[in-house]
């Protein structure tokens, strides 16, 4: 474990990524009561105040938006929303993918070809359009958004886990256990998961970055996280109408997204080099 941290920290980009990820975690866990202002309370008297580095005051360090809401508080609150969505969505797709991958590899035959066809279909489907279509019908809510984003990523895990399951299943001790009539499914799972866990962690890290981008795009279109809940995507959409008199409204949450995506991509690259050198 100590060797692991040493290797990660020696990789400069991965170390930067790790620092930002830790920072994101702190921001996401930041209690609402400790925010400088209520992220959803509008105050017309404080409209369009610039950030402190552009002539504003420390009272609203990152400025205020078109309704006079404090952008620092909104970005922090938005971080919480985006991080929770991304984590749960990636957890859903990993669970789904691992389950289906084991099933495909273990049962083989018709189950396998059905699941692999589903993988192909999933990879051929225009995701953003599918998400838009479903939200157009059922309306947007947080659980639906998370579920859709979660379903969007399972195919990669399924492929990975299936291949490993096939390999493990072909080994003699599994054959032997099946001949003895003991539960070989449990045995397979027990031997598959440790072998794929590092690759799954690497894939999951990149997936978090991908979900950040996808969720912000859906929210930007007004189909994801709904107001008054702040999210990075909706905040950028707010700023779109104020490019002349309030450039910071879109810029502040936008920088937050870029940093978050960069951090997870850097960390993913670093983790892959350390944990999984063969897939480079």
């Amino acid at each position, binding site marked *: 474990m100590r060797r692991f941290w040493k290797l990660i920290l020696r990789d400069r980009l991965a170390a930067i990524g790790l620092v930002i990820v830790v920072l994101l975690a702190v921001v996401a866990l930041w209690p609402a009561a400790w925010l400088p202002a209520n992220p959803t309370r509008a105050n017309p008297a404080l409209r369009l105040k610039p950030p402190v580095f552009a002539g504003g005051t420390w009272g609203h360090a990152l400025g205020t938006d078109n309704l006079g809401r404090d952008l620092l508080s909104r970005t922090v609150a938005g971080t919480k929303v985006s991080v929770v969505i991304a984590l749960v969505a990636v957890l859903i797709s990993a669970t789904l993918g691992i389950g289906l991958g084991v099933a495909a590899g273990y049962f083989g035959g018709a189950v396998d070809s059905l699941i692999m066809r589903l993988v192909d279909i999933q990879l051929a489907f225009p995701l953003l359009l599918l998400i838009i279509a479903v939200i*157009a019908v059922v309306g947007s809510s947080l659980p639906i958004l998370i579920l859709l984003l979660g379903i969007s990523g399972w195919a990669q895990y399924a492929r990975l886990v299936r291949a490993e399951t096939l390999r493990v299943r072909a080994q003699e001790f599994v054959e032997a256990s099946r001949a003895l009539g003991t539960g070989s499914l449990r045995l397979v799972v027990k031997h598959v998961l440790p072998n794929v866990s590092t690759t799954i962690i690497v894939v999951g890290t990149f997936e978090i970055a991908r979900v950040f981008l996808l969720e912000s795009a859906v929210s930007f279109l007004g189909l994801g996280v709904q107001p008054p809940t702040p999210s990075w995507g909706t905040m950028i959409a707010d700023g779109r109408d104020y490019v002349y008199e309030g450039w910071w409204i879109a810029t502040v949450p936008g920088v937050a997204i870029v940093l978050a995506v960069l951090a997870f991509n850097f960390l993913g690259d670093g983790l892959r080099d350390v944990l999984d050198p063969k897939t480079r």
Partner: protein
Amino acid sequence: MIFVIRRLGELVLVLVSISLVSFAVLRLTGDPAIAILGPDATDEALARVRAELGLDRPVIVQYLDFLGKALTGDFGNSTRFRQPVLELFMERLPATLELTLAALVISVLLGGTVGILAAVFRNSFLDTLVRAATLFGQAIPSFFLGIVAIIVFAAQLRWLPAGGRGTFAHLLMPSLALGTYYAAITARFVRGAMLDVLNADFVRTARAKGVAERGVVVRHAFRNALIGVVTLIGLQIGNLLSGAVVIETVFSWPGIGRMAVQAIYTRDFPLVQVTIILSATIFVVINMVTDLLYRIIDPRMRVAT
């Protein structure tokens, strides 16, 4: 050949699932009879309208009817514009194709050039710069890049129009915002492919034969690196099409993406439906053509399958 048949079967499966999703879009959005007559309509009137629209038949029959009409190009009328939705879609399609194509050109020309240069001058300052740029290019959401471009070039410098379609100046920012992410991916991919090829045995042989470095790069390395690039480009066309939804909204670009988003806001479901079915179909067909093309270009793949 078996591969082609399998791929065609898959295409049909994907298209059927697309049609199912889109059929559900229209069917799950409430009773069209109530939408037409209003909430105060009598039961008899509602029943009459349902019978007229064929809504009293079993769902499976309705789906097959929908499928049959869709195959002949009849997707119904827009509830907002009172016009066949296919007409509206076709009117807006050229704008989206223009944007997608421009973004693709940026991805291939910019990404390709930069990727080749980075590979040829490996580990130079230029290479480091390109690698940093590709990392950023893949982390910036296209819509945010678009808004930053509007802030800088339209609001502050007043060099370019902030939205709309017409002249080359209108196309510049939207296509760059959409294309940058893919240019970054292309650059990264081309750099990797070129490095692989530049280290291959046949390139060493060419060098040993005394072929000039320029000839090695252009004739031997680049041509072989190109094979993978074709697949990449095909995959990007599909993704650019669905990415256009977001960029069109940012730049008020009058394409199908912006139309679909507005149709969702105004609950114009036939219009949403046609956009989703047809864009998804274009996406899937392009992916398949790419896959087949790849196998034709690269003879090694023909043996492998």
